[in-house]
């Protein structure tokens, strides 16, 4: 899976919980939850969706490592099997 494909998965999941947003405008280092006003339930839904799409296991203790677009992309790429 390429970085672009990972991005596409992330954008798709973000669109599901925040339909009116344009994830492409998201700054790479912006806190996603703050920038898109996503609550903890919706954020968990995004992580579940990404787990389904990529197969990457995301333990709860790592949630904090996926808070921005850049770190989220990096985390998923590093843990892809």
């Amino acid at each position, binding site marked *: 899976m390429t970085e672009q494909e990972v991005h596409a998965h992330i954008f798709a999941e973000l669109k599901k919980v925040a339909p009116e947003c344009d994830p492409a405008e998201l700054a790479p280092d912006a806190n996603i*939850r703050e920038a898109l006003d996503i*609550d903890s*339930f919706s954020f968990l*839904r995004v*992580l*579940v969706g990404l787990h389904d799409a990529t197969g990457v*296991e*995301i333990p*709860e203790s790592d949630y904090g490592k996926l808070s921005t677009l850049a770190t989220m992309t990096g985390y998923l790429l590093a843990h892809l099997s």
Partner: protein
Amino acid sequence: MGEFRMPSLGADMETGKLVEWLVTPGQRVKRGDIVALVETQKGLFEIEVFEDGIMGEPLIAAGQTVPVGTVLARIDTGAAKAAAAEMRAEPVAGKASEPASTITPQKTAPQQQAISSERVACSPSARRLALELGVDLATVRGSGPHGAIQRSDIEAAAHATAQATAAPPEPKAAGIEPTAAQTTESRMRQAIAAAVSRANREIPHYYLATEIDLSRPLQWLEAENNKRSIRERILPVVLLLKATAKALRDVPQLNGFWLDDRLQVQSDIHIGFAIALRTGGLISPAIHHVDRLQLGELMQALADLIERTRVGRLRGSEVSNATVSVTNLGDRGVQTVFGVIYPPQVALIGLGKIGERPWAENGMLGVRRCVTATLAADHRATDGHQGALFLEALNRHLQKPEVL
């Protein structure tokens, strides 16, 4: 013979519009079946029946707006075994045999034109979208199975209308949509305004706050979540909700309604959980019997409720029968919530952000993860002493997460 009435979907609701019948006369229904769609200021809701039986002829046609409590149809509850055909033969006051759905749709207000009284195959979410965008369902051709109208059809129709009506000198293509959205938003705002005005006018609130050390429950939860797949993991707010329900069992005076100048304690604990809508406004649908749900079940119930609230698929009972409310603003960094009670309820529990704080105990200073829990309560129904007992019970239950 049972009666199916226009339900009250909130303290501020006086009338409701019967948008569509989802059952036909003579059809057998079970308690909990969704039989009609009703529109209020807060949106479109799926309405259930509370009895088993056979639906009679509708007394109110789709498209009509009637006061809360109006009988919409009768339900034969006694002779649930009786043949459906016999039921249809039963005379219904003033309606004769003419099918109610042939009543002429009003042609005047554009608001009423938005929904045709004819039966149109259309999902509630598409119907809601049509209302928001001001699209008349009768003019939309459905592309779904059996010609059912889907959200995409509504969007396409709204887009076509927007293009057709856009004045040439106005290059702003998106100009139409915000106006349509504003009306839903302003109606929602009016509904909220009515409820909170009544709360502030009638309810003498008192407020209590307490700091709760969550270190132990959160440690327990982290260990528990380690054993669970990502799909089954539980969020901290679920512990707080369950502990709230248990504390309400200890102090039942906070779980109920102030009606007819007296407190009417409710034995069921249905927590209204405030959910902000992305389009603005909020709805507090009820999670039923929170005290009886396992933590995993409660997490699923909450996730399901949030999802359905945001796509407009709530049931009538969920917006009408909460016995107490919880507002969680911790996600947005708020430390302390000073709530407004939703009448006729008598209490609202506010939850702030869970975060590290300095914590002094036994002469030692440490860093603990804490939350500020607040109680806004109706002083007509309870006194500060009972409120204090509740917050104490909330803390006590939270410190034993393994038995929550």
